[in-house]
């Protein structure tokens, strides 16, 4: 949205050319300038510049929705709002399961079973909707190299013996879990940025990152001064992209 070119914001051709001579080509550049600077750059009067500002803002601003519309949209599809974890007490506490369309964070002391939980949830996501799953692919970003395919098959076979009765079904399930091994913060971020196309092409219904903390702790030593800012920068950037993906595609992350 911010990188939208001014051309597409319905500004006149000559105005766009004039602005590009001052290196202002996107809405972001335009909105970051003050009114006086805009007057100087566009050569127009105060009131005209205000009108231009409104035009450009309209091109970038988000759409309005009332809370009522949001509620209606949610109530139309209640089953798609959560991914049930099949652990009854957990589902009760979470009011249905892992919520779709938002970021869920699982934290615990080491050895509690976070990775096992992630593997199980990946199996669940590949199940058809009739069995409580999401009938889609899974993207699993692994930073600790803790994912084991054998364990995956073991869990699937033991929990749903009736469904995974043939080897073919197991292979089908494993084919839809896409594993990415990333070992540095930079590669994790790059991978997250590239996920949008993959989600659409592979019909992904669940994104798992296991785990964010380990890769951050490895790279950023909080005792050094500058690292704190860089670390929070990385985390905030990653979080905002993941939130955008979760909301845009209504999938759990």
């Amino acid at each position, binding site marked *: *949205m*911010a990188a939208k070119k001014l051309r597409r914001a319905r500004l006149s051709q000559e105005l766009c050319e004039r602005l590009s001579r001052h290196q202002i080509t996107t*809405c*972001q550049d335009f*909105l*970051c300038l*003050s009114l006086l600077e805009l*007057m*100087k750059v566009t*050569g*127009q*009067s*105060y*009131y*005209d510049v205000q009108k231009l*500002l*409104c035009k*450009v*803002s*309209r*091109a*970038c*601003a*988000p*759409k*309005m*929705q*009332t*809370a*009522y*519309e*949001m*509620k209606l949209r*949610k109530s139309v599809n209640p089953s798609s709002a959560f991914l049930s974890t099949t652990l009854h007490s957990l589902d009760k506490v979470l009011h249905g399961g892992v919520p779709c369309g*938002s970021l869920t964070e699982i934290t615990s002391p080491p050895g509690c079973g976070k990775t096992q939980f992630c593997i199980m949830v990946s199996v669940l996501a590949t199940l058809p909707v009739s069995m409580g799953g999401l009938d889609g692919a899974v993207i699993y970003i692994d930073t600790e190299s803790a994912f084991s395919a054998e364990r995956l098959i073991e869990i699937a076979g033991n929990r749903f013996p009736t469904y995974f009765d043939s080897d073919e079904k197991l292979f089908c399930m494993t084919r839809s879990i896409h594993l990415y091994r990333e070992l540095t913060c930079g590669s994790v971020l790059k991978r997250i940025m590239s996920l949008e196309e993959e989600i659409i092409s592979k019909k992904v219904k669940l994104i798992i990152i296991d785990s964010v903390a380990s890769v951050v702790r490895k790279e950023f030593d909080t005792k050094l001064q500058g690292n704190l800012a860089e670390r*929070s*920068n990385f985390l*905030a*950037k990653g979080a*905002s992209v993941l*939130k*955008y993906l979760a*909301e845009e595609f209504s999938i759990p992350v």
Partner: protein
Amino acid sequence: MQRDVGGLPLAPALRARLVAAGFQTAQELLETGPCGLSKEIGISKEEALEALQVVRQECHGDAARTAGGSGATRKCTALELLEEEQAQGFIITFCSALDNILGGGVQLTKITEICGAPGVGKTQLCMQLAVDVQIPECFGGVAGEAVFIDTEGSFMVDRVVDIATACVQHCQLIAEAHQEEDHLKALETFCLESILSHIYYFRCRDYIELLAQVYLLPDFLSEHSKVRLVVVDGIAFPFRHDFEDLSLRTRLLNGLAQQLIIIANDHKSAVVLTNQMTTRIGQSQSILVPALGWQHCTNHRVRRSQLYHITLHLMASEMCNLQLSLKMQKILK
């Protein structure tokens, strides 16, 4: 009328030409007329007419202001201001300790900033306010609508449904106790659907969308004149990452704050901002301060802009913590 040509809001190129041609005051321009102006400076007659219209508008604005009419720079006594401020409505928060500290609730025409550590209840408070602003006047509310600008994505419709249901029940109890005509009439329109349809929600993903939305807010508010509350949940979040140029960030934030002040005053609505806390690492100790150095802004402008700074140290202050949990129970009931 004696306004200097250099100070008129015309296009810079035109202004430069006028000054070069020797025009000094607005009066001279108006006397010359469009045809004369176009001949002297070498612009078309239409451009000259446009420029003169702008000048005339400015001069009328000035004249109205000096005559003491309504405008941005009217003068009045402090007593008048006091009476006006006291007559302003409040948006109650349903937490009596908080209402006491705020002097009755969140005040209209003022900006209230709520900072706190993550998880302390800032978004919940904002959602509560978005429902409370709609309470009808006979129950002590301001009967307004709410604009909710969300930058973090933490707005939960289900929670708002819970809060609104509890609020309606609360008003129903009051109506039953008092049994007055206007209470029952107001209750007919004060229901879950109407509450939800009067919360206007905008999801801004980055700071450009936030800036664009705030530029468009005055137009939106003139279309929806019943709006009495503007909530910006997470004003710090989009500015905290991905910003190399800190001076640009400060400038944009100051501009944002000024626009919100204008909105609060012109449209008689309350503006509520939530801010994150960050750690300022000092020589001997680290303290939690509101993010983005906002504190400096507010200290400078406390006098003019009426910016209230409420730091919800909900972990430290026992009283607040207690009352806030009381409120949560009330709503859940």
